[in-house]
C-alpha cells in the first residue's frame, strides 16, 4: 500500500510525460477494442438479418451480390426475373412458401421494396423473430405502404401520411412518381435489420407506379392512379424471391434445378452457405485489421517503456534515497511495475470511455450511412483477455527499467555527483 502511495506521488511529479504515455496507451486500446467491436457487431448484424429462409433466387450474378442486394439492400440488382418464372418455381412440390421481392425505387433515400403479405408471415430475422407491427396493419390496397421503424422515426411519419416514391435509389427527387402517392397504413417495430430502413408496398403498387414508365422515362401518355388501379396490375417481373422447403435434404437438388432452369438464367443461393463464404473473405481483412491494431498497442507499450527508461536518470536520487531509508531491492522493481500498471490501467479506462462515447455518438450516423446497427454492449470475454494481456505485457516490459534501477540504486545513487 505504501509502495502504491510512493508510486502515485512519484508519478504525480512527472505528470506531463506520464499522462502523455497514458494517452497513447488509451488511443491504442481504443483502436484495438474499436476494431474488435465493429467487426463483431457487423457480423452480428449480418448473420442476424436472415434466418429460416432456405433459398434466395434472383437473376444470375455472384451469390454474394445476390444476397447483398436482395436482403441487405446494399448495391443494386443486376437484372429482374420474370414473374411467370417465379410462379412456376413457387408451385414446385418441394416449395413450402415463397415471397417475392421487387426493388429499385426509393423514398427520400430509403429503399422501397415491393412484396406481398406473405413477407410478414415468413420473413424471419435473429433466429426466429418475425416482423411485428408497432401501429396499423399490413398493406391491402395498391397504394398502401408499411414503413420500417427508422423510416417513420427519422422522417416523422404518422399513420395515414401520404408519401411519394422516387424512381431509382438516390435520395434526390428528379423523377418522382408524384401522381401516385402512397398512404402509410402500418409502422413496423424496430428489428435492427435493413427492414427498419425500408418502405414496403405491394407488388401491384410497384407495377402501378411504373405503368407509364415503360419507355424508361415518364411517357407522355399519363395514366392516373385511379386508372392504373383498374388496369389489372399483374406484376411482370420481380427482383428476387425467398423460399422455404418442406424437406431440406432436397435443397441441393432444388438449387441445382433452379440454377439449370432452361428458359431463364437464374441463381439460387442458400443464405447460410453464402454468408459463411462472405465471412470467410471478410475474415482475412479482419485478421489484418486486428494485427495492425495489436501492433499499434505494442507500439504504445514500447512508448511507455521508453518513457520509463528515460526517467531512470532523473530518478536515481529517488531510488537511492528509498534504498537508504530501508527499502528492499525488490521494492524498486515493484515501484516501476506499479507505475507501468497505473499508466496502462489509466490508459485502458480512458480508451474504454472514449470507445463508449464514440459508440453513442456514432450509432445513428453509422446506421444511416452504412445500415449497420451498433448495439452498445459490455466488453466480452475476448476483449477482457486483450486488456489483461496488455496489462501483463506492461508489467513484463517494466521489469527492464526496474532491474536497471535496482542494480545501480545503491552503487551510484549516493554519490554526491551523478
Amino acid at each position, binding site marked *: 500500500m505504501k509502495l502504491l502511495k510512493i508510486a502515485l506521488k512519484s508519478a504525480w511529479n512527472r505528470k506531463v510525460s506520464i499522462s502523455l504515455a497514458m494517452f497513447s496507451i488509451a488511443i491504442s486500446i481504443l483502436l484495438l477494442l474499436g476494431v474488435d467491436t465493429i467487426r463483431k457487431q457487423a457480423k452480428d448484424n449480418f448473420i442476424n438479418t436472415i434466418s429460416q429462409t432456405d433459398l434466395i433466387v434472383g437473376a444470375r450474378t455472384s451469390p454474394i451480390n445476390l444476397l447483398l442486394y436482395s436482403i441487405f439492400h446494399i448495391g443494386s440488382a443486376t437484372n429482374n426475373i420474370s414473374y411467370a418464372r417465379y410462379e412456376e418455381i413457387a408451385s414446385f412440390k*418441394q416449395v413450402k412458401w415463397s415471397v417475392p421481392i421487387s426493388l429499385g425505387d426509393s423514398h427520400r433515400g430509403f429503399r422501397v421494396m415491393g412484396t406481398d403479405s406473405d413477407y410478414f408471415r415468413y420473413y424471419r430475422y435473429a433466429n426466429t423473430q418475425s416482423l411485428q407491427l408497432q401501429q396499423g396493419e399490413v398493406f391491402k390496397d395498391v397504394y398502401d405502404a408499411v414503413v420500417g421503424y427508422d423510416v417513420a422515426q427519422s422522417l416523422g411519419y404518422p399513420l395515414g401520411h401520404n408519401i411519394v416514391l422516387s424512381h431509382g435509389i438516390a435520395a434526390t427527387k428528379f423523377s418522382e412518381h408524384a401522381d401516385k402517392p402512397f398512404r402509410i397504413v402500418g409502422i413496423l417495430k424496430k428489428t435492427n435489420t435493413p427492414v427498419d430502413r425500408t418502405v414496403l408496398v405491394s407488388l401491384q403498387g410497384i407495377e402501378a407506379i411504373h405503368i407509364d414508365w415503360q419507355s424508361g422515362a415518364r411517357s407522355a401518355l399519363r395514366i392516373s392512379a385511379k386508372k392504373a388501379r383498374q388496369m389489372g396490375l399483374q406484376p411482370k417481373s420481380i427482383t428476387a424471391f425467398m423460399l422455404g422447403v418442406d424437406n431440406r*435434404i432436397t435443397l441441393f437438388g432444388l438449387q441445382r434445378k433452379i440454377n439449370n432452369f432452361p428458359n431463364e438464367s437464374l441463381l439460387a443461393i*442458400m443464405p447460410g*452457405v453464402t454468408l459463411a463464404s462472405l465471412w*470467410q473473405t471478410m475474415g482475412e481483412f479482419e485478421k489484418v485489421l486486428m494485427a495492425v491494431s495489436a501492433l499499434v498497442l505494442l507500439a504504445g507499450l514500447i512508448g511507455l517503456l521508453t518513457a520509463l527508461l528515460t526517467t531512470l536518470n532523473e530518478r536515481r536520487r529517488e531510488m537511492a534515497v528509498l534504498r537508504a531509508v530501508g527499502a528492499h531491492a525488490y521494492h524498486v522493481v515493484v515501484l516501476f511495475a506499479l507505475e507501468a500498471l497505473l499508466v496502462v490501467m489509466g490508459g485502458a479506462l480512458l480508451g474504454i470511455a472514449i470507445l463508449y462515447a464514440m459508440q453513442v455518438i456514432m450509432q445513428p450516423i453509422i446506421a444511416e450511412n452504412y445500415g449497420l446497427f451498433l448495439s452498445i454492449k459490455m466488453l466480452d470475454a475476448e476483449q477482457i483477455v486483450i486488456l489483461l494481456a496488455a496489462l501483463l505485457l506492461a508489467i513484463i516490459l517494466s521489469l527492464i527499467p526496474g532491474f536497471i534501477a535496482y542494480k545501480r540504486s545503491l552503487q551510484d545513487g549516493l554519490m554526491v555527483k551523478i
Partner: protein
Amino acid sequence: MMLKIKTILLVSMMLLLTGCSDDAENKQNPSANTLTKEEMEVEAPVNVSWADLVPAEYRPEKVVAKYQDLLDKFEAEDYSPEAEALYSKINDELNNAPMNQTLNNQHISLPGFIAPLTQHNGVITEFLLVPYFGACIHVPPPPVNQTVFVKVADHNGIKIDDSYGAFLVSGSILLDGKKTDIGVAGYHIKNAVIEPYDE
C-alpha cells in the same frame, strides 16, 4: 548387397499393402459390429463411410445398365435436348436411391463438409453434411442418400467463420421413413457432436 535392399523394399511394400487392405476392410463392414443400442451409446461411435449410406444391394450400375442401349445412342459430349432429358431422367432415378435401413438408430461418426442452414449469433446449429463441397457446378449435387441433415447438440455449434474444411460428425443416425412426394425424407442426425476432421 543390391539383392538385400530389394528384399527389404519388397517386404516393406507388402507390409504397407496389407496395412491398406486391413483398413479398407474395417471401413466396409461397420454394421458387422452387433452391439445393442444401450451399448452403442457408451461405446465409441462406429466409423462409417459415405458408401455405407447406400444399401449394399443397391448398385447404381444397374440403373445405368438399364438405360445403356439408349445411352449408347448419344456421344459423350452430346448436349441435344433428348440427351439432356435422358441424363436428367437417369439422374433423378439415381437421386431417389434408397437409404441403408440397417443404419437406422446406429451411433455413427461420419466425416464430411458442411452447408450451413441455421445459425444463431454466428454459431451454426443446423446444416447439411455432404461428401464433397464447392465443386457443385460441374456435376449434380450429392443425391439424397448422400446428404445428412444434422442438428447440433447444445453448445457444440461451429462458428460460421470456421465452417470451411472437413468435420467429423458423431451421433445417432435416424432414417426418416416417411415417404414424401419427392421420395424418402432422408438421413438425419440429432444432437450431433462435431469436431474438426483430420486424416
